[in-house]
């Protein structure tokens, strides 16, 4: 009974504990409901050969990454050298999703532009960017209108999805990949999925 005066103090510490924990969370990182679900299928034109298409089926049986990028995306420049290094070391195949390459760029107005013209422009810009910065992708596909991005729940660029042999999304990385996140998050999961399958 003597310790009764401690009750408000303990309540305060409890509340402070909750608030302190809240500070460690990043509200910008919205957890994806697609984890462990089959990746949404898509059929998109390839950046290197726009007359050919690419689908999820083409990667079946492999553990791979789908990296959402755009030439107008500043944070993509930050992670790109790491992707190039990963490709050199053949760590894991990475497919690029060139997200809204033209209409996503705030500097360009696509008003009145035909889809053909926009696609041609996306091809030109995407190829030039990869030529300048290195091409780490086994293949890049063009999501001109961002529709596939919506299917994947993309809300910013870059984002990276880890997809298993059966075509299920197993992990989503939001924002640029860093050497640390590659080492502590992505690669252990890749190894695990490879062992599992």
């Amino acid at each position, binding site marked *: 009974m003597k310790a009764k005066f401690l009750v408000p103090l303990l309540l305060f510490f409890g509340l402070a504990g*909750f*608030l302190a924990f809240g500070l460690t969370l990043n509200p910008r990182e919205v957890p994806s409901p697609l984890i462990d679900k089959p990746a949404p299928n898509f059929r998109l034109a390839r950046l290197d050969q726009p007359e050919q298409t690419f689908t999820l089926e083409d990667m079946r049986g492999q553990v791979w990454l789908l990296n959402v990028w755009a030439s107008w995306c500043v944070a993509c420049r930050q992670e790109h050298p790491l992707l190039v290094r990963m490709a050199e070391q053949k760590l894991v195949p990475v497919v690029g999703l060139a997200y809204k390459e033209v209409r996503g760029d705030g500097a360009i107005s696509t008003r009145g532009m035909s889809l053909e013209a926009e696609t041609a422009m996306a091809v030109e810009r995407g190829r030039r960017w990869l030529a300048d910065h290195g091409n780490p992708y086994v293949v890049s596909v063009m999501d001109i209108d*961002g529709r596939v991005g919506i*299917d994947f729940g993309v809300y*910013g660029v870059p984002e990276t999805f880890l997809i298993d042999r059966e075509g299920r999304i197993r992990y989503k990385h939001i924002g640029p990949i860093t050497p640390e996140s590659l080492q502590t998050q992505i690669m252990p999961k890749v190894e695990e999925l490879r062992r599992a399958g």
Partner: protein
Amino acid sequence: MPVDPKRSRSILSSLRRTLGVGALAVLMASPLHAATADAGPATVPAGIATASDPGVAPAVAADPRLEADMMELSHKLRCLVCQNQSIAESNAPLAVDLRNQVREQLAAGKDKDDVIDYLVERYGDFVLYEPPFNAATGLLWVGPFALLLAGAGWLAWRLRRRRREIAADGALSAADRERARALLAGGGDAASNPASPESRK
């Protein structure tokens, strides 16, 4: 207990509005905050957008009925980029894309719940401005009321105990009763207590 989630949601939300416990809910559930809710001051605006509504995207669809439906839905959906705005209010490119999706799907004859489900499948419950009632958000919705009830229960218990204590302390012994009777009868006991007001007479 089988509860229709839609019904419980509307009951809870009306209770929340009337009692204004949103702030408390945020405090209680701060660890859940990122995943579930933003019960801060920006609640869902009632009614649908009109042309005079500032900060709302201009109408695009030719059919005003469709546009009104689209805007009504858009006010219930959170923009993932600017998280304290609905996709109706935000001009972020993603919000524009999502509005287009909503418009397109409504135009294709889907009903509103289908469109909401479509977005929740892709972006999770976070896309809903009003968090649904489920296992993850249960504490958030019920917590404030549970606290209120617990507080009221504790208060009632304290008051009851106090009343019992007073009753126990105030109980008169047989000797006290005898003395009181003697005083009331104007007996000589008063003389032994000259300071008492009764003795002035």
